[in-house]
């Protein structure tokens, strides 16, 4: 970005400043007139302006042209800050830099466990505990002296925690955490809430706002940052994915499709009316297309497949 001029701002900085002003949504005729005068004053001004304008246009215009891309860009979470640090170290490439990382927080080597589409995997943790990740899941492992922390970033897991009264096993999600000394826990990160179940031995739920709830063995709840609600039926049914099954005991179709999503590459759109239809049955997650077809045979729905990555489900009486 040019020389290090300490006092005078570079022409590029001036051009950037102009762009900031003109995009404020409140730039008036007087601003535009002054901008025009600045451009006319010097060819180097025009050059600097053209570069800044082009830089922004190249980055933005292709995304802006596509409505879905625009929404996707706005919905995107930021890049991970923690990794930003690692990247910076890799960029510097000095021995001191990466050695600092190498001897960084305990357990960092285990972090970033992820599973792809249609892939379930079991990971062994350093204390002998095990993590089974559902397809399309992401987890960071941060074991420390005070607790064994697992951060569920996406998807679902079943954790089998080895007993360690001194270091509780904690699964953290966007809405709160589930804690136990030794237990088998199911935790699923949904879009706006967390689903948690105690499959074996009790556990403790604590939402981000501080609400606490004890889970007896076999119980399941869903919670957001503030509130905890019971989930009817045994918790074990929610973990059927662990053996490749989707068990629907009067589940809304929307929920069935949500469980299928990590097993298919494309996206499934369900109309609101179709999403509320009730489903009964047991399905094999490994064959999501067959599940969809068999749903279409038993429910009053219509499937439309577009190029393999978009499937639309609507009721037959919808147009």
């Amino acid at each position: 970005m040019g020389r290090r001029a300490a006092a005078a701002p570079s022409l590029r900085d001036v051009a950037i400043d102009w762009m900031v002003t003109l995009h404020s949504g409140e730039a008036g005729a007087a601003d535009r007139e002054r901008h025009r005068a600045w451009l006319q004053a010097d060819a180097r001004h025009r050059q600097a302006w053209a570069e800044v304008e082009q830089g922004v246009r190249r980055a933005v215009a292709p995304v802006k042209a596509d409505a879905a891309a625009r929404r996707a860009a706005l919905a995107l979470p930021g890049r991970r800050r923690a990794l930003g640090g690692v990247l910076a170290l890799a960029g510097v490439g000095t021995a001191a830099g990466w050695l600092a990382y190498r001897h960084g927080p305990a357990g960092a080597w285990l972090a970033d466990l992820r599973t792809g589409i249609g892939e379930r995997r079991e990971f062994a943790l350093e204390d002998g505990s095990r993590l089974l990740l559902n397809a399309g899941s992401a987890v960071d492992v941060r074991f420390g002296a005070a607790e064994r922390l697992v951060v569920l970033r996406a998807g679902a897991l079943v954790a089998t925690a080895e007993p360690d009264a001194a270091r509780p096993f904690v699964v953290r999600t966007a809405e709160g955490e589930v804690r136990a000394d030794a237990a088998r826990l199911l935790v699923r990160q949904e879009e706006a809430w967390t689903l948690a179940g105690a499959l074996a031995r009790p556990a403790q739920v604590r939402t981000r706002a501080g609400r606490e709830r004890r889970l007896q063995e076999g119980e399941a709840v869903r919670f957001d940052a503030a509130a905890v609600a019971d989930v009817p039926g045994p918790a074990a049914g929610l973990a059927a994915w662990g053996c490749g099954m989707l068990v629907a005991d009067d589940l809304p179709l929307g929920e069935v499709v949500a469980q299928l999503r990590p097993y298919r590459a494309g996206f499934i759109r369900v109309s609101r009316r179709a999403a509320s239809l009730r489903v009964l049955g047991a399905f094999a997650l490994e064959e999501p297309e067959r599940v969809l077809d068999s749903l279409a045979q038993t429910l009053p729905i219509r499937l439309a497949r577009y190029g393999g990555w978009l499937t639309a489900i609507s009721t037959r009486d919808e147009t």
Partner: protein
Amino acid sequence: MQALYEAHHGWLENWLRRHIGCAHQAADLSHDTFEQLLRAERGGRQVPLREPRAYLTVVARRVLYEFWRRRDLERAWLEALAAQPEEVAPSAEDRVAVLQALQRLDAVLGRLPLRTRQVFMLNQLEDLGYREIGERLGMPVISVRRAMARAIAACCAAAGA
């Protein structure tokens, strides 16, 4: 580099496979990792020899991260597509072009703070003025201006590179 590759690429592939579970992709990503190392070396950077595996892992984590980030971008786009009221079915070419555009914007805004990215995108993609952005994100207009300047500078830096 040759020696490094021969001594460690099997190990690296295993390491990657443990993280993504797919042997095929692990091989690809291991390849990408060595390519990055090669590029770094040409740029005059020395691969530290004392603990090459630690260094390899750092670079591999970056490659892995970019791989997942591409997936996330694609997923976000598909979800937005599915949420659109009208039925659209873009062609395979559209899809590649759009994903490239998203990746590019994401890379350009790179490691800017989330707030800065949001300010820039709300202004550029949604055409919101600074006052409205400030209200939405709960920040003073002067901070919105500063964020804009930072993001525009990042666009220029990327275009110049």
